[in-house]
């Protein structure tokens, strides 16, 4: 079986190399012969998908067949591993995840090459660039991180098993989502570089890649939030984001990708920021590769860096190559990227995008700087330092608040110029609503003058409200205009409005989701926790809750043995739930793992929902009684709801626009778009 996989990888490398060299030759030496050569290169690129898919299939089948003659399967699986995790073996180690990278890239390449008739020449350039990236990953797979390497000596009876941290349902979808995001940025990168090389006239390449970029962004968003939810549900420290280098690695391309999604509108609408957009997408792709390098090379220590080896040098070389190629073509063809318009007013949509991009870049740079500073410190002063949450929070919290303000104001600004009167008119009610929320927060005990974290929470609450209310008011205002002309009620009119400009109103829904996520995060300063050794009937208090240990016990199954406690939760003397915090010992890997239990108090608290989060920390060896740690995390469930809204908004933005409402000349009135003017 391993031989089949190895040959498939070699064949994939040969096909990719042909797709790259043949495609490149066809572009460099145009002519009747080269057209046929280009077509064969395109077909070779399509065939790469089939061959890489075969290689991935062989690895998955080997995992299900417990083929421990393959070293990768021995190290990442075992006989008693449940079926979904055997499937997840494909991306749970370094070699497998690189194969998965390659598979996803070939899938994106397949779709792109099948749709080549949209613009044959531009797609040919993009296809060659994708083939070049594919060659790099297949070189790695064949010569540096071979997933089908065989075990030497006698065959082991059982494998080492999957890392217990990865034995969680979300792990079956989190890495694919993240990888779809990382890999997906190769497509806009390939189109951008292709457009630069061929001095592509106009912005058609941006229109072609818009949906690719949005889909990729949605995958990455989904992957990041799934990762945060996994960390919250599995790592057992009661938090969801720790500014770990690998978390940062996924966050950086998201930040530049988000900046690109905004600034690209300036190029589409006004022909501005062409150089900036080009470099933004180059940087996003570079950061995706950099993220894979951070995860896989072992240059930084991280709880998430599941596989580390010496392939870092390959990635450094590839990153340098990307930089050199991009810089060369930029220098040669930079005149092609001159801006067509000037900035007419600081109170305009253009300026809001400029500030938005500046803040996103500052955010990204801070994260990059914090991630790399330990390496720099070791290099300069020969000692490593830790760069933890206090560093990141100092810069990123104020930047996030400013970004929220722009998210609220930006959609109300028109392209070119906005009158202050219209801004005041549209901003009045949302501002009053935000102020009311601020007053309510102070009335409920948030004292911004006692601690800066409370001040941040207050500002985040007010700004998130402002964003939410401006989005709602935009929908209502536009819906009313439609309702006036169609005679429909408000809700169908709002749906009609969204369908007329899905991109704009889908974007608003994403903004609304961001506001909800921020509301979820602002509860952090109010977290509480308690820890206690709990025997039968022992009680621990936390906030309004009383936790009573009913019992504790042990169990055993082929995959793991576990200890768990039964904790009854009371509030106001009334039992609201029973929770079962657990600790497992995985037999194959000989590792322990906490399994926290979380109860969201939706029924009791409605909007001010909290997470009651229990961790079975272990047993006191002297008394034999379990030690339970309890966290009370206000508002956290809103983070996951907000993430869903963001994904929903992105999906809605992908729908094609419907035809505009037909209005008779006599009834025609100014469109609602005068408020926000465009998407």
């Amino acid at each position, binding site marked *: 079986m391993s031989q089949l996989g190895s040959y498939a990888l070699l064949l994939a490398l040969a096909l990719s190399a042909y797709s790259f060299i043949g495609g490149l030759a066809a572009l460099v030496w145009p002519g009747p012969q080269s057209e046929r050569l280009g077509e064969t290169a395109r077909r070779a690129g399509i065939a790469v998908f089939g061959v890489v898919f075969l290689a991935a299939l062989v690895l998955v089948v080997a995992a299900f067949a417990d083929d421990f003659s393959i070293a990768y399967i021995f190290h990442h699986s075992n006989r008693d591993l449940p079926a979904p995790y055997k499937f997840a073996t494909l991306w749970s180690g370094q070699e497998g995840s690189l194969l998965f990278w390659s598979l996803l890239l070939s899938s994106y390449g397949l779709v792109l090459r099948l749709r080549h008739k949209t613009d044959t020449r531009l797609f040919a350039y993009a296809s060659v660039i994708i083939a070049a990236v594919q060659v790099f990953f297949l070189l790695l797979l064949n010569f540096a991180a071979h997933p089908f390497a065989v075990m030497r000596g006698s065959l082991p009876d059982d494998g080492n098993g999957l890392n217990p941290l990865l034995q969680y349902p979300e792990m079956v979808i989190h890495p694919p989502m993240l990888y779809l995001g990382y890999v997906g940025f190769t497509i806009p990168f390939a189109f951008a570089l292709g457009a630069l090389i061929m001095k592509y006239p106009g912005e058609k390449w941006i229109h072609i890649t818009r949906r690719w970029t949005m889909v990729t962004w949605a995958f990455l968003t989904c992957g990041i939030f799934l990762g945060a939810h996994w960390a919250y549900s599995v790592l057992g420290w009661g938090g969801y984001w720790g500014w770990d280098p690998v978390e940062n690695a996924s966050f950086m391309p998201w930040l530049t990708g988000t900046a690109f999604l905004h600034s690209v509108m300036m190029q589409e609408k006004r022909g501005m920021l062409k150089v900036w957009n080009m470099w933004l997408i180059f940087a996003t792709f570079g950061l995706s590769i950099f993220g894979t390098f951070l995860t896989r090379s072992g240059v930084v220590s991280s*709880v998430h860096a599941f596989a580390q080896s010496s392939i870092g040098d390959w990635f450094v070389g590839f990153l340098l190559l990307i930089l050199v190629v991009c810089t060369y073509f930029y220098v040669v063809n930079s005149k092609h990227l001159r*801006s067509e318009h000037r900035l007419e007013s600081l109170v305009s949509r253009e300026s809001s995008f400029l500030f938005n991009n500046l803040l996103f870049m500052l955010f990204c740079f801070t994260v990059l700087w914090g991630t790399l500073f330990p390496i720099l410190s070791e290099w300069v002063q020969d000692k490593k330092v830790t760069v933890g949450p206090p560093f990141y929070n100092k810069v990123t919290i104020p930047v996030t608040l400013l970004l929220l303000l722009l998210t609220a104001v930006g959609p109300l600004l028109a392209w070119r110029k906005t009158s202050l009167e219209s801004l005041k008119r549209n901003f009045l009610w949302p501002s009053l609503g935000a102020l009311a929320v601020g007053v309510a927060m102070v009335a409920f005990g948030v004292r911004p003058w006692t601690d800066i974290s409370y001040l941040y929470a207050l500002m985040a609450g007010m700004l998130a409200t402002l964003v939410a209310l401006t989005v709602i008011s935009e929908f209502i205002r536009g819906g009313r205009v439609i309702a006036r002309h169609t005679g429909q009620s408000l809700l169908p009119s709002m749906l009609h409005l969204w369908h007329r400009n899905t991109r704009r109103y889908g974007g608003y829904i994403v903004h609304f989701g961001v506001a909800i996520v921020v509301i979820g995060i602002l509860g952090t300063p109010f977290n509480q926790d308690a820890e206690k050794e709990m025997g039968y009937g022992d009680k621990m208090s936390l906030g309004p809750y009383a936790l009573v240990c009913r019992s504790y016990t042990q169990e055993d199954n082929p995959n793991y043995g576990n200890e768990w406690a039964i904790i009854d939760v009371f509030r106001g003397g009334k039992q609201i739930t029973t929770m079962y915090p657990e600790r497992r010992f995985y037999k194959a890997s000989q590792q322990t793992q906490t399994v926290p239990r979380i109860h969201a108090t939706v029924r009791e608290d409605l909007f001010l929902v909290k997470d009651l989060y229990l961790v079975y920390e272990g047993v006191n060896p002297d008394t034999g009684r379990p*030690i339970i740690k309890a966290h009370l995390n206000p508002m956290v469930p809103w983070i996951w709801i907000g993430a869903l809204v963001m994904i929903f908004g992105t999906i809605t933005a992908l729908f094609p626009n419907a035809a505009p409402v037909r209005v008779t000349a006599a009834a025609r009135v100014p469109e609602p778009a005068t408020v926000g003017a465009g998407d």
Partner: protein
Amino acid sequence: MFPTRRPASIALIVLIALLTIGAGDDARFNQLGHKLMCVCGCNQVLLECNHVGCAYSDRMRRELAASVDRAESDDLTLQSFVQKYGPTVLIAPTSSGFNRVAWVVPYLALALGVIWLVLLVRNWNHRIQPASNSGSQAPDMLDTFRRQARKETEL
């Protein structure tokens, strides 16, 4: 009247003082424990490392509690941890020596970003005749093409 009241008052004052001292120590322990990392490799803040039986965190917590009980200053406590476990035990770089660079550079980047923005806007506004990427086509014409392209590629 006084003899009966006095011991009760003194007891109350002592009780409040003890509670306050205890609360202060807890707050300091909590505050300092969130400035330190567990060094077992879990990459967690010391007080958030949840590994019972962790070779480091229990011992480090005991050492921190002892230091707080001895009423040592924050600096002295943190310094003793640095000497024992190395500089990576601190959750963030100090604001002295080369480590100061870590804190300064993001603000420097902000300043450079603002300068870039100002220069960009000035560059746009000082360009009398906007450049066009095809030489003879005016911006309005390009806007028309742009709308056309958007229409054609609406997938």
